[in-house]
């Protein structure tokens, strides 16, 4: 449904994105994860036909974004980063206007449904200018859903929402993602982890990693880590655990009597650790796994990229 090949965009001499290649299928929710200024918005603007790429090509819903821009735009629902709304219109008027531009059939009914989808029923006739930021975000989302697009492109869809609304919007996106293609950008890692089937980590205009959130975590974590706390000194505990088979590294934890143990990949050392501590006559107080979070993966990946890559043969 979305197929990007070597997308590159220069703003003047500055490359915003460089050779992005990725794809997204129907029924997939793909997350664009990256720090601010990584090129997420630029990529989305190209995919929605707002601006052409400097080089490379992209097909959305089977149409070329450059050659068949109108066809693409008919099939895409887009929520830009700064939600574009007309404050002097009511929610219903605004959606009716956008729907008429998109030639939506049975407009009135669809507007009603979209309003229900984002749970704005009670504010449908309020002026947009009087709505809170969270509600405006939902109006923008309703606008993107209105014409039942095959592809939804959402730029930071949960920004500015309160926690309850965030959960609600994520649930809605997951619902929508079942039969459509959703590409969303976020810099909230837990969001990508929860909502997306696949995550593209983008940094300085390039994709640095691409996989399911689980795989990304596993791939970079490599080893399992344990936090062990016992009624003993850290040094004593370290010495004891370091001798165990399968233990790769033991580091002192935050408190005395607490250590962090990493194991070789795929080895569950928890029973061994527990037994060793007890057999040494110490009281085991705590034993828990510390999974490496996507956050750490993300930092690791984006920091590796800090050294400026060679520009190569890209023309401005």
């Amino acid at each position, binding site marked *: 449904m979305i197929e990007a090949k070597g997308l590159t965009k220069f703003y003047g001499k500055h490359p915003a994105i460089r050779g992005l290649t990725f794809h997204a299928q129907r029924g997939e929710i793909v997350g664009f994860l990256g720090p601010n200024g990584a090129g997420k918005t630029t990529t989305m603007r190209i995919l929605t036909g707002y601006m*052409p790429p400097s080089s490379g090509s992209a097909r959305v819903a089977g149409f070329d974004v450059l050659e068949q821009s109108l066809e693409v735009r008919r099939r895409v629902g*887009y929520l830009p980063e700064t939600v*574009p709304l007309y404050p002097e219109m009511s929610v219903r008027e605004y959606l009716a206007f956008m729907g008429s*531009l998109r030639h939506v059939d049975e407009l009135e009914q669809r507007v009603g449904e979209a309003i229900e989808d984002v749970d704005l029923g009670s504010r449908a006739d309020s002026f947009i200018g009087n709505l809170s930021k969270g509600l405006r975000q939902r109006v923008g989302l309703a606008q993107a859903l209105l014409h039942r697009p095959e592809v939804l492109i959402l730029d930071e869809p949960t920004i500015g929402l309160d926690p309850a609304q965030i959960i609600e919007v994520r649930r809605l996106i997951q619902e929508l993602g079942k039969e459509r293609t959703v590409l969303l950008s976020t810099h909230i890692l837990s969001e990508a982890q929860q909502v997306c089937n696949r995550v593209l980590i983008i940094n300085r205009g390039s994709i640095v990693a691409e996989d399911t959130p689980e795989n990304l975590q596993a791939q970079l974590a490599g080893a399992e880590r344990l936090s062990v706390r016992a009624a003993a000194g850290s040094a004593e505990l370290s010495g004891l655990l370091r001798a165990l088979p399968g233990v790769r590294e033991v580091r002192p934890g935050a408190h005395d009597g607490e250590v962090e143990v990493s194991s070789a990949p795929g080895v569950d050392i928890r029973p061994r650790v527990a037994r060793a501590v007890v057999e040494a006559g110490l009281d085991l107080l705590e034993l828990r796994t510390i999974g490496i979070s996507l956050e750490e993966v993300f930092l690791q990946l984006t920091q590796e990229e800090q050294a400026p890559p060679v520009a190569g043969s890209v023309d401005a």
Partner: protein
Amino acid sequence: MRNVWILARREFTHYFISPLAYVLSFFFFLVLGLVFYLSLSAGIAFGQIEPDGRVVIGWMVWILLLAITPFVTMRLIADEQRMGTLELLLTAPVRDWELILGKWLGSFGFLLLLLSVTWVYPLILHRMTQPGIDQGVLVAAYAGLVLLVAAMLAIGTLVSTLFSNPWAAAPVTAVVLLCLVILGNASATSEWARQVGFFQHYQTFYQGVIQVSDVAYYLSLTVFCLFLSTQVIQARRWR
């Protein structure tokens, strides 16, 4: 084409919820009404009312249109840019020229509405005088006004595409329009200047004559400015 109507309708109705449009209309009709009243009073005082419809749609309308056009067109595109809604319109399945044409048409509708109300003055004059006013001249003068308004609005639309702040677009539009008026008006300037300027082309309408060359002048100016506006929007995408 359907999109053009949708955009034009929204633009047109937008004028009626903006206080600025009411201020402009108030100003427009206040001055016109005063001019009409004064010329009638003068006519009565001298014992003869000039049976000439141009008393209201003459130079006074010119000055008024010159003053209000920049405010009518300033927000057309500039405001969409300021609010970020241009991104919405440019990612909707709307062609760039449909957007420009729709916006312009909406503003054209608004000024046509204002102009249509000014019919009451010649109508009153017609009732008050014997044998009434020269309707041929009146129709020609109005036709010229409509064409002039179309061209002025197209210029305003073009300027509006260049700015992301409406209040910056307004004075620039005013200056451009003023230049075109001055160019055509100064009899000492070259023939070229008079051909480019507004005035010479309007004078014939004012005398009750509709010339193809004058109609072509206003129409081509309108089309050219709208075409350029579309190009500016397209260039914006490539930026």
